[in-house]
């Protein structure tokens, strides 16, 4: 009997230690990132980062995205719903995290398109056609061109612009920031510096809505 008690207590203690350590780790991380969002905001938003939404918006959604990532594509419509539902209150910042094979080429296309003011159009086209230019999570960049052409984007201008060495620097900067912020999977989402953890649509809605309530008290009424 005594042995069973020893075993039972050990098992419960181990599981309890796991749960406590997990919650400590998560609070610690959220605190660290919250602090960083205030003191070191540039880790979240760089000058080169595409931003959508009203300048006065108080809720910042930072998304580390990989154009070849399926969940990012699926999440993009979901994100847009929030921007529509709360006009002027939400800003969306895109950061590049090309984790898939060959994704950096697609990011280069996006940066080049941004120079011509076509970033969001290009991103939408790429997300919508993702299945056509990826195979087994690998990017086949040659398949992107006809798709962009059909969408009415200036392919020759993008092709000419995407080899600018400045773009490599931008990608390196974003990947370095992703590492600092512990982004290992895409989409890596932060709302006013708070990481989305655990990942999920419902969790994301709760996080955004809690930030909206905190920054716009009139919404709670």
């Amino acid at each position, binding site marked *: 009997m005594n*042995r069973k008690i*020893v075993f039972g207590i050990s098992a419960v203690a181990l599981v309890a230690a796991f749960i406590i350590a997990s919650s400590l780790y998560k609070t610690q991380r959220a605190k660290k990132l919250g602090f960083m969002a205030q003191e070191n905001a540039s880790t979240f938003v760089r000058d080169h980062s595409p931003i959508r939404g009203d300048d006065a918006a108080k809720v910042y959604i930072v998304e580390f995205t990989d154009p070849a990532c399926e969940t990012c594509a699926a999440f993009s419509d979901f994100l847009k719903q929030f921007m529509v539902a709360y006009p002027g209150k939400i800003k969306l910042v895109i950061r590049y995290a090309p984790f898939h094979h060959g994704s950096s080429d697609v990011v280069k296309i996006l940066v080049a398109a941004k120079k011509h003011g076509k970033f969001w159009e290009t991103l939408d086209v790429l997300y919508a056609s993702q299945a056509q230019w990826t195979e087994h999570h690998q990017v086949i960049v040659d398949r992107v061109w006809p798709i962009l052409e059909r969408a009415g984007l200036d392919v020759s201008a993008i092709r000419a612009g995407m080899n600018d060495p400045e773009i490599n620097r931008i990608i390196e900067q974003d990947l370095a920031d992703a590492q600092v912020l512990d982004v290992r999977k895409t989409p890596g989402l932060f709302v006013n510096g708070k990481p989305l953890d655990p990942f999920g649509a419902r969790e994301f809605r709760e996080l955004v809505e809690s930030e909206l309530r905190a920054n716009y008290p009139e919404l709670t009424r």
Partner: protein
Amino acid sequence: MRTPPTAERDWNLLFACWLVAAASALGSLFFSEVMGFAPCVLCWYQRIALFPLVLILPMGLFPFDAKAAKFALPLTMAGLLTALYHNLLYAGLIPRSIQPCAQGVSCTEKYIEFFGFISIPLLSLLAMAATTALLTIVIRRSH
């Protein structure tokens, strides 16, 4: 009923082995599920050897059956060999070109280094060595 002292000691050893296995399994889940480190191929092979121990060993604890050590030993030995290989790879003593993990997470990716030398593969090696040693003692003594 009093159990003979040797059986008492062997139970303790098998229990200690389970403690090491359970703590390692939870630690490994902490790295992957809480901290978000993706396990590489070699890590997965070691996990395959480690996770069953957590469930198999208690079967030998209640009621005590030293044979459980015999059944668990092949797992810990396989894990020990994989961990040894992983550590050599990690330390750069085996050239990268022959490593089996070309896709996905690199097996030499450095996630943590406590005190500058305690890496995840080293933790695995220690756990595999400890469980193998404990099980070997139990098997030796039960003969």
